[in-house]
């Protein structure tokens, strides 16, 4: 499927990759706020830094003057990062005010994003939050007493619901509420949760259960059919061999070592046993025999015949 990005998204991406002046690419040294979100394993991650103009007495009146990002991710992840920095710098926000920027503002700034790319805008908002948390620590601002909820450490706590992307229950519960997610595809589009193996969709405590808990179980709830345990097919009873499998394989090895190898050695060759499975012996000719056009013949007429005569007439040799 070709790209469905808006002109704005494409333009911001191209400006960023070409390092056009006015873009927000980079990392501020000794920043006032530093935040990260995502990981390279998941396919996108962002490092977000900002600098403030410090208020002499009241740190809560610091104003963000400069915002920079480094982003590993797709076209829309990079464009979202650019959008976030532009919104923040244009707004003249304090860090706490900047928290009011949501992923929807980013999507709006970009003139929309395809549904499966919404998570790119969410990443920007999360990185911002984590940077504000960092600023508050540095400046000694008690966010909680100001009534500001920060979730930067949330992922480290709580049960993991989506194991593929490592997303926790508190994080998903909050995102479902904040972004008004009503279906599993909406959750996947916004957070990636359930986008890979899909095992968490209808598992107990999975995405559907979270949706039900947040929004109440409506009549549309999918009934989860209890999994029917299948009996594995019974192992076929092996016919009792005269020798134990160990003794049988030993006998074959011994015969090859004592009889076959010396014969092949005359011609500068050798044989390797790859595997022994019931009466099948998987072999590879080596040395001078390896490239020989009659390798197959040698195995059949010489190796196989010797083993048939001396160990068991049911033996067959397979060239590997």
């Amino acid at each position, binding site marked *: 499927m070709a790209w469905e990005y808006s002109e704005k998204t494409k333009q911001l991406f191209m400006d960023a990759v070409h390092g056009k002046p006015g873009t927000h690419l980079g990392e501020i040294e000794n920043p006032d706020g530093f935040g990260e979100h995502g990981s390279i394993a998941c396919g996108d991650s962002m490092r977000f830094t900002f600098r403030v103009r410090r208020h002499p007495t009241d740190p809560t009146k610091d104003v963000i003057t400069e915002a920079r990002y480094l982003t590993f991710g797709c076209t829309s992840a990079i464009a979202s990062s650019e959008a976030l920095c532009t919104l923040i710098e244009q707004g003249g926000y304090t860090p706490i005010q900047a928290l009011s920027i949501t992923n929807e503002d980013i999507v709006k700034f970009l003139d929309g994003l395809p549904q499966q790319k919404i998570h790119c805008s969410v990443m920007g908002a999360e990185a911002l939050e984590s940077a504000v948390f960092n600023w508050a620590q540095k400046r000694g601002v008690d966010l909680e007493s100001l009534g500001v909820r920060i979730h930067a450490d949330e992922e480290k706590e709580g049960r993991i619901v989506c194991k593929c992307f490592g997303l926790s229950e508190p994080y998903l519960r909050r995102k479902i509420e904040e972004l008004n997610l009503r279906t599993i595809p909406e959750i996947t589009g916004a957070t990636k949760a359930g986008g890979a193996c899909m095992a968490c969709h209808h598992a107990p405590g999975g995405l559907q259960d979270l949706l039900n808990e947040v929004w109440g179980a409506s009549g549309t709830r999918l009934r989860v059919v209890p999994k029917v345990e299948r009996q594995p097919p019974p192992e076929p009873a092996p016919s009792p061999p005269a020798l134990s499998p160990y003794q049988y394989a030993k006998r074959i090895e011994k015969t090859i070592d004592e009889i076959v190898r010396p014969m092949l050695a005359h011609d500068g060759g050798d044989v390797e046993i790859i595997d022994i499975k019931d009466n099948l012996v998987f072999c590879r000719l080596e040395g001078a025999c390896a490239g020989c056009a009659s390798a197959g013949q040698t195995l059949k007429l010489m190796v196989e015949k010797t083993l048939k005569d001396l160990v068991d007439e049911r033996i067959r040799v*397979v060239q590997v």
Partner: protein
Amino acid sequence: MRLIYADNNATTPIAPEVVEAMTPFLTHDFFNPSSMYEPARKTHEAVVRARKAVADFFKVSDPRQFIFTSCATESNNTAIVGVAKAVPGRRQIVTTAVEHPAVLEVCKDLQRQGHPVTFLPVDRDGKLDLRQYIRAIGPETLLVTIMHANNETGVIFPVAELARIAKEIDPAIVFHTDATQSVGKLPIDLEGEFRHVDLLSFSGHKLHTPKGIGALFVRRGTPMRPLLIGGHQEEGRRAGTENVPYIVGLAKALELAAANLDDEATRIRALRDRLEQALEATIPWVQVNGRRAPRLPNTLNISCHFVEGEGMLYQLSAAGICASSGSACTSGSLEPSHVLRALGVPFTAVHGSIRFSFSRYNTEADIDRIIEVFPQVVSNLRRISPYWDAANNTPRPEAIAMLEAASRNGGTAAPARSVDNRP
């Protein structure tokens, strides 16, 4: 801007000779080959001739062993599901972790219906371990389905040998191969080296026909129930009115491929190798996937550490170059390529994978242009990447440490899950 098409493992440009061969059947010779009146003889005979031409390509004496389908996906579905239906006494299927979804998902579907399925892993070069292969085959084994050449990496499996080993263990085992990427690129002699292969799938649009035509080789005596029923066509093995113009086009495409198989392979291999060497020489931190294994001459799969594939594709596209990526962001599933993960491509590189694949219509000038554009594309994104030190053009120390820690743990592409345990 000149378009450079380097995504021939996805589909290929249509050969003018193929269009010419098809045209009469898209215009005046429209008759149903099954009809009784005289004009229908022409379409009937065209299908017979085409089947003969397809059989000649594979050096098969009885052309009726080929049935025409709509695409390789249909051929694969017909082969796998058809064999499972025809042999109710056996259950187990042996396949690999790197098959195309048209095989992998069919096998997983049968697994949900109770068939035990073994997904053989591959090593870091993309190769199978023959010992594991031998051990996977047992008295319950119904079908072995292993691709000839991989669509993403171009790695070639020794299918002729694998088929022979399966038959030597137990002649009742059915052997299927998906040869979609190799037909027209590698010689396949179904009555010679490949005589132990029972079923072989391929499609036309990978060798310069329009999309919408495939074929399935079904060796005489192979137990297989049809997937599409409701007509006598293809001797009841695939119902539906024959797609005459496309069947004629497929035959023509195979004739063209056969005429230049060796020369073209040599020329295309030289193009690919030149690109591979140039990119490796100019871009730090890249790896060529599947290089130490036998590979298709036309495929280059290269992973660039610490960048993401979609952003590369977009910039290439803006420069008029068409390629594809194994990155999660281009897959629609949010997960990076199952093939590259099976190869153990490190998680720092799996998202930055690009596949260039060539055909007989690519030129030296195409390669020059890619060599000119691609290194810049990578360095543009690395400049933005939080894992890259742009000043020294190397990964940041903490990024290298992360990669080393992961390889110590045997970790590759997260999430760490064994392919065998997937439902």
